[in-house]
């Protein structure tokens, strides 16, 4: 039987391996939350931030409140994970960032030993007028590939609000990923969805980014960068809907295939229902650009080193 202290120590170790700073989980100046499977191991609130949790049989329900006008100096750190080989974690997340608030959230999802693990997140996120929410989620998976990750979110952004999210999964095998984020923007609101994934082995990746530009002057960017090696396969859907005057949106998808057995698909959908809106897209699927590789080789890098630099760059 593993004690809570051992679980916490294991999570902190995995967090550090994934690039997180150990001190961030110990600081009392920053809000934080560490959840292992369905147990809240550590929590800290700061003025203007409330993190209410309720443990369930399979995970944790989390209510995240950023109070009106709160501008958080230090990023909020969230840490989710399962350390054993098997397990299920369901996070039901409700976020309310009230008017004129501003917060930066750094989330780490840690599954270093996963052989048969499912991690689900269902998020319902609401940003008030002029609220700014910057959410960066980095995954650290082991080398077994036995994991299923299903992050789903619906985000409503109030007038003049800004939602920025980055989902990065480039360490370890992805396993099975089914990412589905949908954002609804009111007047002058901004949404930026960025997904960066490195698929290897027999990883199976589905990415679905949807942005509805429903307010006057709303702006959106759905960006994805995927690199696929071995027998990995990926399908990326980037959808942007311009439904209001002066709405501006862009879908930007690049998938690089390294090798002959990986498979990449991109399905950009751009739709406009207002004659003053404009939505554009670019999608490129192909092998790693030979000229880029040779440019780096001409500086003395071996071919594999050059490819590695290019892959790391695109996933940065």
């Amino acid at each position, binding site marked *: 039987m593993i004690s809570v202290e051992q679980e916490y120590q294991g999570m902190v170790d995995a967090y550090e391996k994934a690039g997180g700073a150990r001190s961030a989980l110990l600081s009392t100046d920053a809000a934080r939350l560490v959840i292992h499977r369905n147990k809240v191991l550590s929590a800290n609130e700061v003025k203007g931030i409330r993190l209410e949790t309720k443990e369930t049989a399979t995970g944790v329900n989390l209510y995240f409140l950023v109070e009106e006008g709160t501008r958080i100096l230090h990023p909020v750190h969230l840490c989710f994970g399962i350390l054993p080989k098997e397990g299920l974690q369901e996070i039901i997340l409700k976020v309310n960032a009230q008017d004129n608030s501003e917060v930066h959230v750094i989330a780490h999802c840690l599954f270093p030993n996963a052989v048969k693990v499912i991690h689900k997140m269902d998020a319902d996120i609401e940003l008030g007028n002029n609220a700014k929410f910057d959410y960066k989620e980095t995954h650290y998976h082991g080398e077994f590939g036995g994991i299923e990750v299903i992050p789903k979110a619906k985000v409503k952004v109030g007038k003049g609000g800004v939602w920025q999210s980055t989902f990065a999964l480039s360490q370890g095998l992805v396993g099975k990923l089914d990412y589905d984020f949908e954002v609804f923007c009111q007047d002058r609101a901004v949404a930026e969805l960025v997904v960066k994934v490195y698929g290897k082995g027999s990883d199976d990746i589905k990415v679905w980014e949807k942005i509805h530009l429903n307010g006057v002057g709303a702006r959106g960017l759905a960006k994805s960068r995927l690199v696929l090696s071995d027998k990995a396969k990926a399908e990326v859907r980037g959808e942007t809907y311009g439904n209001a005057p002066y709405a501006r949106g862009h879908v930007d998808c690049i998938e690089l295939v390294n090798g002959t057995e990986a498979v990449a698909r991109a399905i950009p959908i751009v739709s406009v229902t207002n004659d003053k809106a404009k939505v554009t897209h670019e999608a490129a699927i192909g092998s790693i650009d030979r000229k880029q590789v040779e440019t780096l080789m*001409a*500086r*003395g890098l071996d071919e594999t080193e050059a490819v590695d630099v290019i892959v790391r760059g695109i996933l940065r």
Partner: protein
Amino acid sequence: MLIVENLQLRLNGNSIIKDLSLHVNKGEIHGVLGENGTGKTTIAYLIMGVNNYKPTAGRILFEGQDIADLSVSQRAKRGITLAWQEPARVEGLSVRDYLKLSGNNFGIEQAKHYLRMVGMEPKQYLDRYIDNTLSGGERKRIELASVLAMRPKLAILDEPDSGIDIVALPLILNGIVEMNRQGSSVLLITHSEKMAEIAHRVSILCAGKIIRTGAAAETSLWFKDNCRTCLHINEPVEEDEKL
């Protein structure tokens, strides 16, 4: 240092490089002057070994060793590098990291020094990515800074002046001269006789063949007087071949 002997390249049944011979001496800036379509970039690619170009015949000797079968990396490790006419952009790779990739373990101050040598303010550029947010001219200057940072034995510069504005051009010229002072030999590929003036010697390329080699000033003048007004459209006449 570099001896190219009777080099030939045929692509899709067309003769692109025809029995080309060229010597670049150690410590020399050697200009290759030619109009568009004469094969200047092809020579650069053949010497560096990029773009899957392999000579159909002939030899490329670097410091006495035939390098035609070496990979791009192996050639670079022997001290050859290339600055492309249109440098690649690499998303997510910062200018700082690109300069460090050159293989010399230098600190931030040296990276700044090389950027200043090509007229770029380090504070403005070090942390930028070499992606499509940089203009073609900016990218070219960064390419030159990276060659300076590498301190190669032989730098092949393919049209280093193209796309460079008139204010930055003297900095590029100074950068090339400084590169040479640092100890690099330079194969300076250009269509500009003005650019070729900084070379010690110049060879004139016409239709995949070197038709004349000599001192920079007089050879550049010959190029200006003959090649600029040439009517035989990239086909060297017998008289030229004898020169």
